[in-house]
């Protein structure tokens, strides 16, 4: 602790350089926290909402293509399937086309949706009111809180995708691990569109998570030679494909994260090398006074770790503020229901920033600490 003052003073020695380094680390940790939150959301979808029991069936081409609703009966016949429910993405605009007003909307079968999503908690009265009225809708508590909705309120959704402005009446508020979605009747849209009988996704509930590989294979095999072949995947994998429609999203995110950390480590190493080089004489003086190589190394390395940790704190605080308090997280939650900056993400972000400090400061600190005293003093008699 007695060296802390020296470390802090050295960190503040070149304020502009320290500030720029802190900012570069904070940006990288912010990006990393975002990526970690996305990765955690992939896993969280299955763990917190019973998603490990669920599969999602969709067209094997893109999410924009649909399947005949008749598929549902065939899917129900697959051994291990205990419930199915069709769900279509609506994508309507509520009030204004801005992130704050953007939330997930699905038109669903008002009866079977609760069979495949037992984690949706709603009172029997509100559930019945929703199921009985064709223009009824239910929404998660988070949406009620965010927009100040009350039961009986009318929610108007304009969709840019087809000629329909949905006018829905809120009849229920649900709670559960995910509270950011509005559900309304599939029949409402089907009637307005002239009953095309098309389904974007089938949600499938299985008897056991162990059945997943077999059920997925059987469903896809069943429609392999049809005009609309399917792709069945776990709910977590669906979330991943939904957000990016890329193959290995986790791998991509982890790869980008590593590249960011590596790049920032190089920048940090360059900064620390410059900082250490400028102080060779001071290091030599300290060693002459009796500071040992290990002590000098630890002091310079501590500066690097402190700067990186400062950047880490700024980065995770920025992520928390931007995603949680400003509301950008709601936009992310459209695709990843459990997207949030958790305590674990914060801890990992800070851990990575400390690692950046250690990696970037290690060699420059060692180089400086090893300098010969007589060389550092640069004196020739």
């Amino acid at each position, binding site marked *: 602790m007695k060296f802390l003052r020296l470390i802090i*003073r050295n960190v503040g020695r070149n304020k502009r350089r320290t500030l720029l380094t802190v900012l570069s680390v904070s940006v990288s940790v912010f990006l990393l926290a975002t990526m970690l939150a996305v990765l955690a959301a992939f896993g969280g979808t299955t763990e917190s909402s019973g998603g490990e029991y669920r599969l999602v069936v969709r067209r094997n081409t893109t999410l924009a293509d649909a399947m005949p609703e008749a598929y549902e009966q065939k899917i129900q016949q697959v051994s291990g399937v205990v419930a199915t429910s069709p769900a279509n993405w609506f994508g309507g605009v509520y009030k204004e086309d801005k992130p704050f007003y953007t939330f997930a909307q699905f038109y669903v079968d008002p009866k079977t949706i609760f069979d495949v999503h037992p984690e949706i908690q709603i009172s029997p009265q509100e559930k019945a009111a929703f199921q009985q009225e064709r223009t009824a809708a239910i929404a998660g508590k988070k949406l009620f809180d965010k927009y100040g909705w009350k039961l009986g309120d009318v929610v108007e959704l304009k969709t840019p995708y087809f000629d329909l402005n949905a006018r829905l009446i809120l009849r229920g508020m649900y709670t559960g691990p995910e509270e950011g979605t509005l559900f309304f009747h599939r029949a409402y849209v089907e009637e307005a569109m002239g009953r095309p009988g098309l389904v974007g996704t089938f949600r499938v509930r299985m008897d056991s998570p162990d059945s997943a590989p077999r059920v997925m294979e059987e469903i896809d095999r069943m429609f392999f030679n049809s005009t609309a072949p399917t792709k069945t995947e776990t709910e977590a994998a669906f979330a991943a494909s939904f957000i990016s429609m890329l193959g290995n999203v986790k791998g991509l995110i982890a790869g980008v994260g590593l590249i960011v950390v590596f790049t920032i480590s190089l920048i940090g190493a360059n900064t620390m090398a410059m900082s250490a080089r400028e102080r060779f004489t001071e290091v030599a*003086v*300290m*060693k002459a*006074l009796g500071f040992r*190589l290990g002590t000098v190394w630890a002091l310079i390395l501590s500066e690097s770790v402190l700067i990186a940790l400062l950047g880490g704190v700024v980065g995770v605080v920025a992520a928390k503020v931007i995603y949680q308090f400003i509301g950008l997280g709601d936009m992310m939650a459209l695709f990843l229901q459990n997207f949030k900056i958790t305590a674990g993400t914060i801890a990992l972000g800070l851990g990575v920033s400390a690692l950046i400090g250690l990696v970037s400061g290690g060699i420059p600190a060692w180089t400086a600490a090893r300098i010969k*005293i*007589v060389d550092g003093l640069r*004196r020739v*008699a």
Partner: protein
Amino acid sequence: MPDTLINIVQVTKHYRRDTIDIPVLDNIDLEIAQGEFLALMGPSGSGKTTLLNLIAGIDKPNSGRIVIEGKDIARLGEQQLAKWRARHVGFIFQLYNLIPVLNAFENVELPLLLTNLSKKKRRDHVMTALSVVGLENREHHYPRQLSGGQEQRVAIARAIVTDPTLLVADEPTGDLDAKSAEEILDLIKRLNEEFHKTIIMVTHDPRAASHAHAVLHLEKGVLSKSGGVYEVPAAHH
């Protein structure tokens, strides 16, 4: 006859630049007594700073022995030498070499951070050292807020704060105006006379050397008179 503090025996030192061997010190034999104030003089490249560095334990000879208080410091490892320096040597540099981000108090306190002294004890020691050099009212000043002479006095306070046996000074007045230089030399002399510090000072300046008890001349790595026989300045006759 005072006790011998430093006994240098057959010390040679040479540097290697690429493939060329550059001799700096050649078979130096020297005895320095406890409480001595010795000035090392000689032209540039004569090896006086190298000899000072060897005595201070910040460089090592290629051969020979440097026995200080009975211990051959030429045989100590890096870590042992660091510990020895912290306990026995105080450094005074030409360019003061204060840490610019620390104030006067913190600069003087720096060597004490390596000890187990409590914060209060460290403060007492620092304030004592600052009062010896007459800067007890400048403890919060940073080096940039001090004159050259004041900076050198802070550096001297840093050198004496651990109460070392030996003070080594490399051109301590080389960067100062005449008045400040005289004040610094008076201070160094006082440390020798009042506090009985053994002082070895490298200087080009005969006036600075005149404050010493004895002057030793080095020429091309060889003592002008072998066996540590000094030329005594006129002022001391």
